[in-house]
């Protein structure tokens, strides 16, 4: 195995072509979309395409990860991501063990790294990690031999969510390149926004982030996207609108980010009246869980332009693909 200095350096092997000059996946971790090339992102999406078929069989299981153990480490709460990874692992015949920080050794004062090393010592092949601290999976990846998949770290990245969003866009609109996407809402606290901005731009889409100045840090421009505070101006121009959840649990410190929920809904909520002014085929996305009536109305969330449940379905295929790919790259 390569010498471990930086997580990104160790997981990228130099050779990416196998027999017949075919592209071959060689990264043993998935920490973020930032470290992936366009080719690698497309490879995950194409692999996920094949995994979709498994979920349509009468026996929804393949032996690809038989004998492997997937450790789900959720230092922060999650429902759908955790269940999605859990189901993805079991569809590939892996065993899963679950760790949540509530009522665990973390409450007894154990450090994150000690927790992970102890669980690794039980013989875990892949860790799926969600952590409240940005960069936690990267630190862990440098210290353990197992594969690491980032399932959301602080306000940094949520790569599988970004991938499943892009997968869904590609499925519904047939392409990603040349599209214009708006990401609306709580950009400041959103790892989903970051992974989407990075991934969409790498695949040739244009991204504009929209929200109140208190929730859109000006420095986000450095990621290459544009900023707007006027949803009504942007909506008619875009092919995709991703409505982020307002993450009340992350609002810390003095003062609120906006005067009232009603004002936020008026300014930045997606409702039927606004949808009418959009392109006819606009794709409405939401990473869930939804605050119905706040960032999106029920009518729009459950309407024909919405692909919210499709995102969840696709998430399973994308996570199967990611677990499969990192496990293959981890082998010698």
């Amino acid at each position, binding site marked *: 195995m390569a010498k471990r200095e930086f997580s990104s350096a160790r997981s990228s092997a130099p050779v990416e072509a196998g027999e017949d000059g075919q592209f071959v996946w060689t990264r043993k971790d998935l920490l973020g979309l930032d470290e992936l090339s366009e080719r690698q992102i497309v490879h995950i999406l194409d692999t996920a*395409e*094949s*995994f979709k078929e498994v979920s349509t069989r*009468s026996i929804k299981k393949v032996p690809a990860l038989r004998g492997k153990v997937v450790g789900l480490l959720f230092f922060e709460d999650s429902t759908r991501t955790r269940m999605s990874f859990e189901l993805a692992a079991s569809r590939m015949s892996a065993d899963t063990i679950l760790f949540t920080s509530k009522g665990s050794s973390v409450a007894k004062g154990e450090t994150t790294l000690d927790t992970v090393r102890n669980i690794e010592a039980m013989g875990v092949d892949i860790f799926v990690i969600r952590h409240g601290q940005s960069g936690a999976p990267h630190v862990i990846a440098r210290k353990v031999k197992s594969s690491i998949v980032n399932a959301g770290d602080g306000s940094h990245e949520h790569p599988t969510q970004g991938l499943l969003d892009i997968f869904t866009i590609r499925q519904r609109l047939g392409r990603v390149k040349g599209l214009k996407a708006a990401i609306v809402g709580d950009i400041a606290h959103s790892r989903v926004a970051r992974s989407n901005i990075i991934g969409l731009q790498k695949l040739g889409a244009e991204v504009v982030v929209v929200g109140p100045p208190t929730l859109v840090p000006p420095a986000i421009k450095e990621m290459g996207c544009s900023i707007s505070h006027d949803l009504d101006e942007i909506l008619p121009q875009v092919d995709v609108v991703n409505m982020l959840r307002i993450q009340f649990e992350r609002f810390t410190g003095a003062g609120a980010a906006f005067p009232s929920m009603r004002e936020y809904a008026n300014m930045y909520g997606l409702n039927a009246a606004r949808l009418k002014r959009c392109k006819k085929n606009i794709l409405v996305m939401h990473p869930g869980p939804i605050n119905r009536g706040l960032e999106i109305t029920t009518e729009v969330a459950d309407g024909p332009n919405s692909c919210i449940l499709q995102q969840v379905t696709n998430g399973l295929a994308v996570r199967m693909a990611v677990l499969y790919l990192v496990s293959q790259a981890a082998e010698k």
Partner: protein
Amino acid sequence: MLTAKQVEQALDRLYKAATDQVPRDAAVAVVGIRTRGETLAARMVGRLRADLPGRTVNHGILDITFYRDDLSRRRGAPLVRATEIDFDLDDAWVILVDDVLQTGRSIRAALDALHDFGRPRVVRLAVLIDRGGRQLPIAADYIGKQLDVPDNQTVRVKLKENDGQEGVFICSK
């Protein structure tokens, strides 16, 4: 080893042997193993549909990647493609098609994969080339051409649809 003409003759033999035994009352399914087996199966299906008008001839494609026993011995992951079996395999007469039979491990994987889709009445194995070197108790029912190739050499089947040319070649590893 084999010219385009000889490949055609071998395929013709293979087709005749494989289809001769299909009983009249059975639902036929020709299932190819990706990638070259898929092409051979597609050709066989085309000919079979022309020869048996009015009968249902199903065409399936297997990607056996997930079922391989050497998964954990390879480094890196090439693109996995979808398995396409969108018909009922139960009680079907299945002709499983691959280009080269050597160790028998691909066929073992393909049989496992097939059985996740249903319970065929019969599975027959048709291969263009049997090169010897079996590691599992698996034998082909129909063989286009038998070759005796030492283990340190590779048999490559090239087909128009995949490679732009037709023929069987032997290369040193």
